[in-house]
């Protein structure tokens, strides 16, 4: 137990970390439900196994670090990291993929840096980025939208089989994501011709749009409960819309429009659930605007110029790097000072010696 020494005002937040995280978990439910409805049992298996692995790994590391278990586990943060990574991974991912991702997220990105509140990077996105680099093949096989109970859907048993590695999903069970398909559009094909050719399994676009709207609903709940502020989501999505509009205006035949970029990938989910992580994001309001806009710009740059179809994880991690810089230059003016207290104050040693 360390003594708290903070300056006044010593008002305490009415909600504990555990409560905040419970609201975040609640807000992920519409998104998870929608993704499961369209992409099958794999989503639910991912979420549950990743959350379970998260809690187990956190308990393990806390044990190794001889820290009290109950206090830290009760803040539900490992659970949230697990859920966020679980919904980002392709449905029907094998168990070892999820485990490796959660080890990277909880053990490396979170606990090695000192646990909740000390991690400079978003744990779930560290796990995701590592998996994307290390296992590009399973990470880019997203499930086709066969639904939970449809005629082509995998049953719960079959999905568990894929999870345990007893079988691997047939080619018809997997399909590209809209962003992936558009990324690999041949240069000679115009965007309009590309979409007219129906490059994706039927219902894919609809599934992604519905999931994005469900995440938006969850995000609205977080905004309403004041768990997150509007600055990061708005500036991130705003920057994406701006750049996507400019690019489409410059060359509509080879660039997708802003709506596609917003709803076709992980943009909404990232804007409300990933970028707003209170630990690794910028702190001041102005800083949050810069931080979110930076993520939006990076997402669009990587999506349109890079080799990866989607880029929320990389963009968030890159902006996590920039957070100390942003915080340094956006520190607001505090009451009683005429100017913001920016910059590092170096104590002059010679002055001290002169005084003696």
């Amino acid at each position, binding site marked *: *137990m360390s003594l708290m020494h903070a300056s006044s005002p010593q008002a305490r937040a009415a909600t504990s970390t555990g409560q905040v995280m419970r609201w975040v978990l609640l807000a992920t439910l519409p998104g998870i439900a929608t993704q499961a409805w369209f992409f099958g049992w794999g989503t639910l298996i991912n979420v549950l196994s990743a959350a379970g692995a998260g809690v187990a790994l956190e308990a393990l590391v806390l044990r190794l670090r001889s820290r009290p278990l109950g*206090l830290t586990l009760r803040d539900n943060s490992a659970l949230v990291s697990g859920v966020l990574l679980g919904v980002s991974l392709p449905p029907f991912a094998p168990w070892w993929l999820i485990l490796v991702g959660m080890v990277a997220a909880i053990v490396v990105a979170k606990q090695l840096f000192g646990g909740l509140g000390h991690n400079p990077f978003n744990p779930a996105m560290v796990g995701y980025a*590592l998996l994307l*680099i*290390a296992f590009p093949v399973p990470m880019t096989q997203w499930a086709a939208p066969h639904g939970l109970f449809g005629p082509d859907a995998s049953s719960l048993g079959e999905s568990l089989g894929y999870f345990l590695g007893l079988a691997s999903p047939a080619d018809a069970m997997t399909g590209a994501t809209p962003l992936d398909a558009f990324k690999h559009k041949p240069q000679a094909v115009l965007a309009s011709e590309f979409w007219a050719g129906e490059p994706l399994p039927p219902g894919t676009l609809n599934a992604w749009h519905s999931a994005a709207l469900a995440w938006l609903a969850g995000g609205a709940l977080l905004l309403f409960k004041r768990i997150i502020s509007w600055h990061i989501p708005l500036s991130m999505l705003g920057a994406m819309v701006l750049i996507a509009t400019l690019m489409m205006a410059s060359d509509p035949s080879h660039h997708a429009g802003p709506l596609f970029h917003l709803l076709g990938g992980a943009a909404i989910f990232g804007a409300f659930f990933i970028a707003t992580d209170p630990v690794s994001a910028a702190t001041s309001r102005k800083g949050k605007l810069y931080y979110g806009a930076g993520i939006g710009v990076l997402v669009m740059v990587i999506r349109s110029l890079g080799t990866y179809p989607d880029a929320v994880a990389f963009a968030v991690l890159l902006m996590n790097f920039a957070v100390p810089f942003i915080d340094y230059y956006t520190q607001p003016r505090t009451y009683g000072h005429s100017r913001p207290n920016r910059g590092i104050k170096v104590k002059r040693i010679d002055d001290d010696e002169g005084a003696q």
Partner: protein
Amino acid sequence: MSQFNELTKNGLWSNNPALVQLLGLCPLLAVTSTVVNALGLGLATLLVMVGANVSVSLIRHHVPDTVRLPVFVMIIAAFVTCAELVMQAYAFRLYQILGIFIPLIVTNCAILGRVDAFAAKNPLLPAATDGLMMGLGFAAVLVVLGAIRELFGQGTLLADMELLLGPIAADWQITLFADYSFLFLVLPPGAFFAAGLLIAAKNVIDDRLERRRRTSQTGQPQHSRRVRVTGTIR
């Protein structure tokens, strides 16, 4: 004799160029994807380190302080060229694999650091020992890192050793996990990660040794003093 023990301990452990001084990280991270690459670059660096330390120690009274760095770099570059030619002659395929990182040994600050900090101020024998031990320490870390990355990255150990040691090493490869690949460790980020773990492991070992030393000196563990505690500790 104690000076040589000290130099040995410094080079191999307590002042290890890779684990403690954190010098020469560029080759350390770039070429340690397999044991054979690591060993090849480690041996080349070792050769250059010993040669440069010996030469600089011999001419240390004849080089003016103001121009010492260019002179030292020239000497190091000469030895790197030698190492490069030797590799070209006897391990050409390995030479091709290591590529730019062999000429880049010139810029390895671990070498210039030892030359400037030690060899330029000490007689021949200590300087040679220092070069040897620092080089061995560096090469050892390289090989360990290469082994970790090769084992967990592609599931083998000692693959392609014939590139360096000739035909007798052709069947040394040990396949621990067949049909296995963890690309992350093969790529440079994995090298950062593995090197970080190695440094952490070294610090843990040092910590344990220090604690044991203190316990044996004072006869009681460090934290066994009774302190008054009020309230509950959760």
